[in-house]
C-alpha cells in the first residue's frame, strides 16, 4: 500500500480537517463528530436534508453540503456506516423545527444506523422522513445489501431534493418527490482496477491486467461478471442495455446523465464514455437534458466508472438547474 496518509486510523479525521480548512465559508464541523454541516445551519423554515455514509466516496457526501443541496453530511470510517449516535446529533443540529429528511444509500449498516437515529430523534419530537436510494441495476442482493445498492444516482437525489427543500416544500412533499426520483434513476458501474482501504492495506479484490468487472459496487463488491477488457463503445452498450432492461425510457423522453469516475479514471476516458452514451441515447431518440461528467461518488482509487440515467419529470428540470452552493455540484444563481 502506498498512500499519502499519516496513521491509517486517523484518515477520516485528517480529511475532515482539510475539508474545513478548504471551505471555511461553507462548512462547520459538529464538535468532536465526523459531521460537516452548512456554516449557518439550521436554516429557518426549511426541511433539513441529511445524507452520509462511509467515507472513501469523496466528494460524496460532504461535497454536496451547501445552500441548494444538503444541510449536513455524516461521515463514517472508510466504507463503514456512520454511527447512529452521530446521525442523531446531526438531526438535532440541523432541524429548524420544519423537520429533517434523510437520504440513505441502501447498505445494511447505513439503513440500520440512520433508522435508529431517526427513532431517537422522533422520540425527541423531531419530524423525520427518509428515502433509501437503490439505483444500481447490477445485482439484487449483494455483499452489504438486501436489495439493490445505492450508488452515484444518489447525487441526483441530493440535487433535486435539496433544491425542492429550498422552495419551502413540506416534509411530506419532499418524501413523495424523493420516492418518484428513486423510481426513475438507474445506475451501473464497471471496474478496471481495485482499491485499498487504508486500515486494511491490501486491495479489496484483484483483476487481471486485461480484465474488466461489470456491475461492481462502490466498495469493490462483486458485480455481474468479469470479461476481457472491452472498448468504450462496447462497455457503454453493455451498461445501457442493463439499464434499459430495467426501466422504460422512450423516444422523446428527457434524461439527465451522470458519468462518474470511481477514483482512478482520467477525465479523458469519462468523456469518451459520455460520447458513447450520447450516441446510443440519440439513436433511441432520448434527449439528454443535462449531462455531468467527473468524480461524484468514488471508491477510493478504484479504476472504472458508473453511468447513471435519471428519467426527468418536467418539474425536476427546474430543480436540477436551481442554484447550488455545494462545492462539487455548483450551479450559479
Amino acid at each position, binding site marked *: 500500500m502506498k498512500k499519502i496518509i499519516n496513521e491509517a486510523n486517523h484518515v477520516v479525521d485528517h480529511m475532515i480537517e482539510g475539508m474545513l480548512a478548504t471551505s471555511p465559508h461553507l462548512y462547520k464541523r459538529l464538535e468532536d463528530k465526523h459531521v460537516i454541516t452548512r456554516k449557518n445551519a439550521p436554516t429557518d423554515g426549511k426541511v433539513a436534508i441529511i445524507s452520509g455514509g462511509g467515507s472513501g466516496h469523496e466528494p460524496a457526501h460532504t461535497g454536496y453540503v451547501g445552500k441548494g443541496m444538503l444541510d449536513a453530511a455524516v461521515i463514517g470510517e472508510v466504507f463503514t456506516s456512520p454511527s447512529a449516535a452521530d446521525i442523531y446529533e446531526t438531526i438535532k443540529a440541523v432541524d429548524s423545527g420544519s423537520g429533517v429528511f434523510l437520504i440513505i444509500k441502501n447498505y445494511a449498516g447505513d439503513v*440500520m444506523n440512520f433508522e435508529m437515529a431517526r427513532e431517537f430523534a422522533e422520540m425527541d419530537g423531531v419530524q423525520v422522513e427518509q428515502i433509501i436510494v437503490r439505483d444500481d441495476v447490477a445485482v439484487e442482493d449483494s455483499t452489504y445489501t438486501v436489495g439493490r445498492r445505492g450508488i452515484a444516482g444518489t447525487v441526483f437525489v441530493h440535487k433535486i431534493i435539496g433544491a425542492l427543500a429550498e422552495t419551502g416544500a413540506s416534509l411530506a412533499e419532499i418524501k413523495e418527490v424523493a420516492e418518484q426520483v428513486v423510481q426513475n434513476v438507474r445506475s451501473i458501474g464497471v471496474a478496471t482496477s481495485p482499491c485499498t482501504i487504508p486500515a486494511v492495506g491490501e486491495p479489496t479484490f484483484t483483476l487481471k491486467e486485461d480484465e474488466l468487472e461489470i456491475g461492481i459496487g462502490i466498495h469493490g463488491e462483486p458485480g455481474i461478471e468479469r470479461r476481457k477488457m472491452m472498448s468504450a463503445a462496447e462497455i457503454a452498450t453493455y451498461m445501457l442495455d442493463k439499464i434499459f432492461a430495467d426501466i422504460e425510457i422512450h423516444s422523446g423522453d428527457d434524461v439527465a446523465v451522470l458519468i462518474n469516475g470511481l477514483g482512478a479514471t482520467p477525465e479523458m476516458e469519462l468523456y469518451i464514455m459520455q460520447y458513447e452514451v450520447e450516441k446510443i441515447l440519440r439513436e433511441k431518440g432520448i434527449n439528454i437534458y443535462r449531462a455531468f461528467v467527473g468524480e461524484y461518488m468514488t471508491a477510493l482509487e478504484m479504476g472504472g466508472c458508473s453511468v447513471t440515467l435519471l428519467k426527468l419529470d418536467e418539474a425536476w428540470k427546474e430543480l436540477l438547474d436551481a442554484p447550488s452552493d455545494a462545492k462539487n455540484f455548483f450551479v450559479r444563481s
Partner: protein
Amino acid sequence: MEITKEHITCWIKKINEKIAENKCYLTKLDQPIGDGDHGVNMERGFQATVNMLETTSYDTVSSMLKACALSIMSKVGGAAGPLYGTAFLRMSLHVKGETIVTEKMFIEALNEAVVGMKKRGRTEVGEKTMIDVWAPVVEKLQEDGALHASTIIQTAKEARNKTEHIAASKGRASFFKEKSVGYIDPGAASSYIIFEALAETLEEGACQRG
C-alpha cells in the same frame, strides 16, 4: 413479581461483569467469522452504560431503559450497538408511562425488543444472529407467562449452541457462508450473556451491588 429500576441497574451491571469476563471468548468467536471486535465493543459499551447509571438518577423504568438504549447504541458501535440499542429502546417504549412493570408487561417488552431487532436487522430466526437466542427465549417466556430464571438460562444456552450448526445469511458472518458453520455466532453468545444476567437478577431480586 414486578420489575423495578433496581432490577434494571442490576441487570446491566451483571451484563457488564459477564462481558468483561468473557471479552476474550467473544473476540475469539468473532475473529474467524467477523471482524474480531465484538468483545471489545461490548465491553466498552456496557462499561459506559454502567458508569452512566451510577451517576444519573431516573424517574421511571422507561426513562432508564431509554438512556441505556442511547448509551449502548452510541458506545457499542458496529452492528451490535444499533441492534441491542433497539432492543432496549423498544422495551422502554413498551413500558412508557407505567409506574409498575409487571412480569407480564416485562415479557411483552422483551417481545417488542425481538420485533424491533428483527426489523432493524431485516433478520428472521435461523440466520445465525442474536435473534436466534432472543426469539426462542422470549417465545418460551410467553408460553410460560412467567419469568423463570432456570428456564431462561436453559433456553438461551441451547439456542446459543444451536447457532454453531447454522450457515450465516445475515450480518458480517454471511460473507463466509458455509464456512461459518462450526462457530457459535458471537452475537448469539453475547445475547446468551444478556439472558444469563437477567436470570441471575431475577433470582437474586433487585440487588444493589456496587
